[in-house]
């Protein structure tokens, strides 16, 4: 069912110049989506691919009519949405089944909402349950089922409505690798076998291989704010072979796009980047240490897709570590390769006290928020400040949750480097008396 660009099916959903932003503290506008334009046609599978923070789930919920764009419009068959999109059904990452209803009652729920008579409802539900391979589980409750079977119920509940467009929000990411693979394959054979009761599919994913495996078109979203970086057609026939050279080449190309330095984010020199212009990636020190160690153990250079597959890491888990390690100049990215830097080599081979010193130096000079905290502590009278002070500052550029997350990361990094300490019960950040807080610039 691959559709070439010339003979696209009818237009189902049209996203036109959509912006989405939230109002932060002090009236600052926090952008989540910026100028998104895309259309979804009948007969195609579109994948929205991006890191966390790229707003891909927000975009999907805008298409579903669950949230409204700040500017721009979403149209379903030419009609602007004013509420939940009447032509879609959705499959959730967390399944979103009613735990108190049986499999059959869950599947029938949407039909009941449409006022379908009971007998008809039962037949349709049984047909959908049969189609999706759930025979024999009609009277089971979701909590009796494994994750894979639950997601099958999720699919049956969506497909029984025969929607124009099926929306899927990372439908396989809560499942184990084998179950996910099995479900993906079955779904694709239904789609290619023309039995599929929907006209199009839009899937959100952060798994690059999954996107290439399923989609006819991959739309790559960049972060902060979410915007379309690239749109790549996937011209392969189904079923697709992961080892085919063209497949691998496309996966590498997507890796490159996702790890690529986004110009406006990475341009600022570390010395004068502000905490809001260059947020800290959500990476733990332990995670970065593990990654650097692996790169060191493999001779200082590894292929990113390869290592991700080997560790069975999702890129959402891996990329923050890569971002953190490159921010601190412990690793650098060349194409789809990770390369150990001299600092990284020194850090991973040093003893624990020295490695803490190296880390402290890197964090102080290269992580903007850590530097800001250090400077503020150095200028305060008693070397301690309340966390609320930093949260207030951060909320000018971040939502409340993100501000919290940023500060937590900075506290984690600074604590490990013994730059400062944090007392959670009083909310007080205190400078470590032994730490040099501001002579960092001279050292780096």
């Amino acid at each position, binding site marked *: 069912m691959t559709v070439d660009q010339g003979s696209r099916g009818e237009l189902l959903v049209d996203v036109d110049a959509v912006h989405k932003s939230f109002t932060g503290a002090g009236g600052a506008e926090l952008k989540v989506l910026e100028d998104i334009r895309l259309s979804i046609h009948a007969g195609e599978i579109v994948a929205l691919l991006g890191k966390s923070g790229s707003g891909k789930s927000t975009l999907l919920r805008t298409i579903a009519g669950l949230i409204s764009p700040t500017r721009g419009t979403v149209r379903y068959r030419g009609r602007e949405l004013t*509420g939940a999109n009447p032509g879609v059904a959705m499959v959730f*990452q967390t399944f979103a089944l009613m735990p108190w209803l049986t499999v059959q009652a869950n599947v029938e729920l949407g039909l*009941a909402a*449409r006022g379908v008579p*009971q007998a008809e409802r039962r037949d349709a539900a049984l047909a959908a349950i049969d189609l999706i391979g759930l025979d024999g589980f009609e009277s089971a409750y979701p909590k009796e089922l494994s994750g894979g079977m639950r997601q099958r119920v999720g699919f049956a509940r969506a497909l029984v409505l025969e929607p124009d467009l099926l929306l899927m929000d990372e439908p396989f990411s809560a499942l184990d690798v084998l179950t996910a693979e099995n479900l993906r394959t079955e779904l694709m054979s239904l789609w290619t076998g023309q039995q599929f009761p929907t006209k199009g599919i839009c899937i959100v994913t952060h798994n690059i291989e999954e996107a290439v495996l399923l989609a006819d078109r991959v739309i790559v979203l960049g972060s902060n704010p979410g915007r379309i970086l690239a749109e790549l057609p996937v011209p392969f026939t189904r079923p697709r072979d992961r080892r085919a050279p063209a497949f691998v080449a496309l996966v590498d190309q997507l890796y490159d796009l996702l790890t690529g330095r986004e110009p406006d984010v990475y341009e600022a020199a570390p010395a004068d980047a502000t905490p809001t212009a260059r947020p800290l990636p959500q990476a733990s020190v332990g995670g970065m240490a593990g990654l650097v160690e692996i790169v060191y153990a493999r001779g200082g250079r590894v292929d990113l897709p390869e290592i991700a597959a080997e560790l069975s890491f999702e890129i959402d888990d891996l990329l923050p570590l890569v971002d953190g390690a490159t921010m601190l100049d412990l690793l650098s990215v060349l194409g789809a390769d990770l390369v150990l830097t001299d600092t990284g080599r020194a850090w991973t081979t040093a003893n624990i006290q020295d490695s803490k010193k190296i880390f402290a130096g890197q964090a102080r000079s290269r992580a903007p928020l850590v530097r800001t905290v250090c400077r503020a502590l150095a200028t305060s009278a008693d070397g301690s400040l309340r966390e609320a002070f930093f949260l207030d500052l951060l909320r000018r550029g971040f939502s409340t949750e993100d501000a919290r997350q940023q500060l937590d990361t900075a506290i984690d990094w600074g604590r490990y480097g013994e730059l400062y300490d944090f007392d959670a019960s009083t909310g007080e950040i205190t400078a470590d008396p032994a730490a040099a807080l501001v002579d960092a610039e001279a050292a780096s």
Partner: protein
Amino acid sequence: MAVLRSFPSAEALRRPRQSLVDVAVVAGAATLLWGLVQLSRGVTAPFDSAAPAAAISTDPADLPYYAARSLLRMFVALVASVAFTFVYATAAARLRRAEKVLLPALDILQSVPVLGFLSVTVTGFIALFPGSTLGLECASVFAIFTAQAWNMTFAFYQSLVSQPRDLDEASRILRLSRWQRFWRVDVPGGMIPLVWNGMMSFGGGWFFLVASESISVLNHQFTLPGIGSYVAAASDARELNHVLLAIGVMVVMVIGVNVLFWRPLTAWAERFRVEDSEAAQAPRSVVLNLLRRSRLPRALGRVLGPLGAPIDRVMAVFGLAEYPLRTSPTRRRAGDVVFGVAVLAVIAWGLLRAVEYVRSTVGLGEFPHALGLGLITFGRVIVLVVVATLVWVPIGVWIGLNPKVSRLAQPVVQVLASFPANFLFPLVTALLVATGISLNWGGILLMSLGAQWYVLFNVIAGASAVPNDLREAAASLRLPRSLWWRKLILPAIFPSYITGGITAAGGAWNASIVAEIVKYGPTTLTATGLGAYVAEATSAGDFPRILVGVAAMSLYVVALNRLFWRRLYALAQQRYTL
């Protein structure tokens, strides 16, 4: 082991952050009180004092009939509480502006000592149904309702606003109607906190049942046939053996309701557990198993099942469970301002009128007087909480850490927590009269008869939830006794202890109204305190003084909750939650 959970559950105690709102809360409370007093004063004119005065016999043969009447009142009140919960909590959770008013109002209602209002409600309801005892029945049911409804409403509200986001999105995408959403998503989702808080509040309701069946208002004694008035009559006649008999019947009734009604209900509600929530040991019930094996439920299902679809269709008029995606921010802001100003204006006007009413009748000097009396009652509450803590924390920990003992103690504690303490008042009063101890001290004992169990109850729940590996770690560290208490047990039970403390203190304030004036036979004992002040004003029908007394007591309760308990509770949630 359903008993091993704390009560009220966390859902019922959680509150949104309020700061400036507090001022409005206190002002709103005063307005509400004044409004109620005004309402009832208006209807005292056609007051028919001749109608209700059923003679209560102390013949044991009449006791089953009285008990049944009392039980009926309890269940009518329960039905009313559930209906109130559904409407009120749903409105608070779904209507943004209403939430701003409904939630603080509920907080007040929970803090106001309802017993002080019995006279107001009794006169009001009697005037509604002149010449029959229906008014008295309503007043009694209303008093029980006030003991049951608030916790249930808070718990249900909390479950509505903390509904998982994906379930909310799924119901919107599936285009459920409001009616369908309520019955298929909202009610099932809130079923466990609702049933649990319902069961425990039902226990609290017995106290109000006893207090409301026999009450003296406007110098007139009103009685309803019931087990509470039976005890009152037996106490008047100084027939201690009949009091003991009634206590026995009461125990049987409390246990019976638990076994036949609440246990099956809690066991049945397990099916609504979302699996990733806390996995307490699932309650089981023999009665439910019997019911499940019988053909009755299926037959009922066959009769009632076909009704579902037509009702669904009719109720679709309420519309889809959806809200418009776009609202104009300016219009919304303007609406907020208008709404806020209107609410504040009503509160300010009511507050002014209330103050004016008191000033023109008993004078504003009455407030300092009532607050001074409140200080004495406050002293009693402090003594009670401290003594209950010293006595019940070690015992509760011992019980909670020994699974064998808690299995034995569980039904006993459950009965103690549900048993209406005012049933025992005649016995204690007889003792006080005989020994000549002043009620100023004896009042503490009377107040503690009901209140202390909440401390024990929650400490047991907390102690039994201490993870085994922590206890083993402490054992392998060979912690000395004092360290074991300070570093393991006390921090671990702190959250449940605070929950128990809040409830015990609140219960003690309420109990002071019936505990600071007691009668046994011809002797009346009176203690100095705010409770006695309110009780005296109630029986004399002195509305300005009722208003002053209840306002003073609400002020104490609200202030203590805000300044003391809420802070400890926040600390417990932040630091000591396991």
